[in-house]
């Protein structure tokens, strides 16, 4: 009943408009080369601050979907994935484009994204409240454990050097400590009044993702070729086989997507590998198998939806984009967690309802607009890049009307670019930046009650054990790859 009310509320003219604008803007930004979904959400986040709470959350979620869809479009048409999770889509999507069949690849991408999105929305509606009920018994010890688990998992699973990932996470914890702390003591401000309020989240994110991505693109200097779209719709046989692939990918990716650190890219890669294993013609994968596109896209969307379960039920973001959505909630004094489904029931069901609405909007609008999106890709980067930087500057300025925040954006842009350039992961920094206050607050509460509290709470140790498992699993995976020399990417 709550869900139906939520869908009806999301379908109200005002909310429908937010979802429509968010989907369109998100797709537009996601299609443009050099901007992934995280950057899109980060850059556009401050501009949604003028909306009412439900409008802002709906718009943000729609921008997230839209930019994900846009990222897949660039992956299929130009072999330029808008984000890491679209890399797997490019394996077969771009191969289909080279075979002169980008239309069916785009159509299947939209249809399977829609399927996985709708199934994922239903699962969020079913699982979210149950997880929230379980979390009602959580105290500071469990929240400390959960936040440490989230940060450990994302550091362990971010790929590359784990030591580097943990260093970056600690740097994130240090950076978020700047400013007046919870007991009104200014820390790491060095007498600068601008630093008393700390670094605002929006400029930090915009810098780390938006500015850094532009700088990275300037360095790589990629040129792109757009192929003719041709026939759009796939054949009936292709549609049938893609539906099976999409369902399998959704079944695999949704549970995985609920785990912190389990990036959509990992889910889509696992779903792709599974599809290749169950296929009667595994040799077609990587050479234009439409099932590969279906599996990758469905997995992306299912995992993307699954990320909302820990965010809404526990208040724990599983990745950088969810961290931004958490910030959007916090902006209105709403704290995601177990009480969200009871205290802000209307808002949360409207948000879940908007998932359905946005998915339908994406399906209806994007297929006819594919030609337009394809043309947009041809906008020359020298024109696009300064406009992105302009949006980054304004987006940073807007939340507090403070020029200092634009400097923060600039500094974090340089930091993000250098981190990327030197092969340091950025995601652990973002997670630490968002989870840092939770960790410190919970740790200080535990300390104030009694440090022995940790010994009495098995939930805390369960999360710590899960974090250690993520570390060991990641280490063993790295060791195995080093031994066998198996490359995870497709040629």
């Amino acid at each position: 009943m709550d869900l139906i009310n939520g869908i009806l509320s999301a379908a109200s003219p005002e909310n429908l408009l937010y979802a429509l604008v968010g989907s369109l803007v998100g797709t537009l930004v996601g299609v443009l080369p050099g901007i992934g979904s995280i950057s899109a959400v980060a850059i556009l986040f401050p501009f949604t601050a003028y909306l009412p709470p439900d409008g802002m959350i709906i718009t943000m979620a729609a921008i997230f979907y839209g930019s994900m869809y846009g990222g897949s479009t660039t992956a299929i048409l130009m072999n330029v994935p808008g984000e890491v999770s679209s890399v797997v889509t490019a394996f077969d999507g771009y191969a289909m484009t080279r075979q002169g069949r980008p239309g069916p690849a785009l159509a299947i991408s939209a249809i399977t994204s829609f399927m996985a999105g709708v199934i994922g929305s239903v699962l969020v509606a079913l699982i979210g409240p149950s997880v929230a009920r379980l979390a009602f018994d959580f105290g500071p010890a469990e929240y400390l454990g959960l936040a440490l688990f989230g940060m450990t998992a994302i550091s362990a699973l971010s790929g590359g050097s784990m030591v580097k990932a943990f260093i970056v996470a600690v740097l994130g914890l240090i950076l978020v400590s700047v400013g007046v702390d919870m007991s009104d003591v200014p820390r790491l401000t060095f007498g600068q009044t601008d630093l008393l309020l700390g670094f605002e989240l929006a400029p930090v994110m915009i810098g780390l993702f938006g500015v850094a991505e532009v700088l990275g693109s300037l360095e790589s200097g990629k040129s792109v070729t757009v192929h003719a779209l041709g026939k759009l719709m796939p054949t009936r046989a292709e549609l049938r086989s893609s539906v099976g692939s999409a369902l399998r990918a959704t079944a695999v990716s949704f549970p995985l997507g609920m785990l912190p650190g389990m990036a959509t890219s990992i889910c889509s890669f696992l779903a792709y590998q599974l599809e290749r294993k169950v296929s009667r013609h595994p040799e077609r994968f990587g050479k234009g198998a439409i099932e590969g596109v279906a599996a990758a896209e469905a997995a992306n969307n299912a995992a993307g939806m699954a990320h909302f379960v820990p965010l809404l039920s526990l208040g724990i973001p599983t990745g950088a984009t969810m961290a931004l959505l958490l910030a959007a909630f916090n902006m209105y004094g709403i704290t995601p967690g177990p009480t969200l489904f009871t205290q802000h029931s209307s808002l949360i069901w409207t948000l879940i309802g908007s998932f359905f609405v946005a998915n339908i909007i994406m399906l209806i609008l994007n297929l006819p607009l594919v030609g337009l999106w394809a043309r947009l890709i041809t906008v020359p980067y020298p024109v696009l890049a300064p406009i992105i930087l302009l949006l980054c500057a304004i987006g940073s300025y807007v939340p507090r009307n403070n020029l200092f925040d634009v400097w923060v954006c600039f500094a974090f842009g340089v930091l993000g670019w250098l981190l990327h350039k030197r092969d340091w992961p950025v995601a652990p920094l973002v997670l630490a930046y968002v989870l840092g206050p939770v960790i410190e607050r919970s740790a200080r509460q535990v300390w104030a009650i009694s440090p022995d509290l940790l010994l009495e709470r098995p939930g805390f140790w369960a999360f710590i054990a899960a974090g250690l498992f993520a570390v060991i699993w990641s280490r063993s995976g790295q060791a195995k790859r080093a031994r066998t020399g198996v490359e995870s990417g497709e040629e």
Partner: protein
Amino acid sequence: MTSDPALKILPSSRSKTIELVLLGLVAIVVFAEGYRFVTTLSGSIGAAEAGTYLLLLAGLLAALTSAYALQPARRAPAAGPEAEAGDEGRAGRHKPWIGLGLFFGYVVLLGYVDYAIATFAFLAAYLKYFGQYRTVTVLVVAAAVALGSAYLWQVLGVAMPRNGFSFF
């Protein structure tokens, strides 16, 4: 697009040394701040906890930095497909620095002149350098985007830096 770490230019030992020095400095600064809290501000409520937290972070950073220092520095591949294809990349290496310089100039300008003027100057410089379009095209596009966006922000109620004289 590949994510194979072996194909990336990996940090040389000199870069790693710079990284280690910077991380060490951060650890020292955070430790000093935490120590100051614990020793001199212990009278303030919560200061000891705030300081202890910083000491903990500094210790963690120092330990992780030590672990990173013990890892062997990997060298960039001397030759290979990436190195061969890297001529274009090497030529473009200065581009992000110039882009960064222009963005820096834009942020400085925003502190002294009106949004539309700063934006016009930034766009014109950027388009001229990176786009290498004709001067007239650059000026027209820069003016259109600067004035158009200033008008759009005003319509949307988005506050802009206002210095000197304003167009809107």
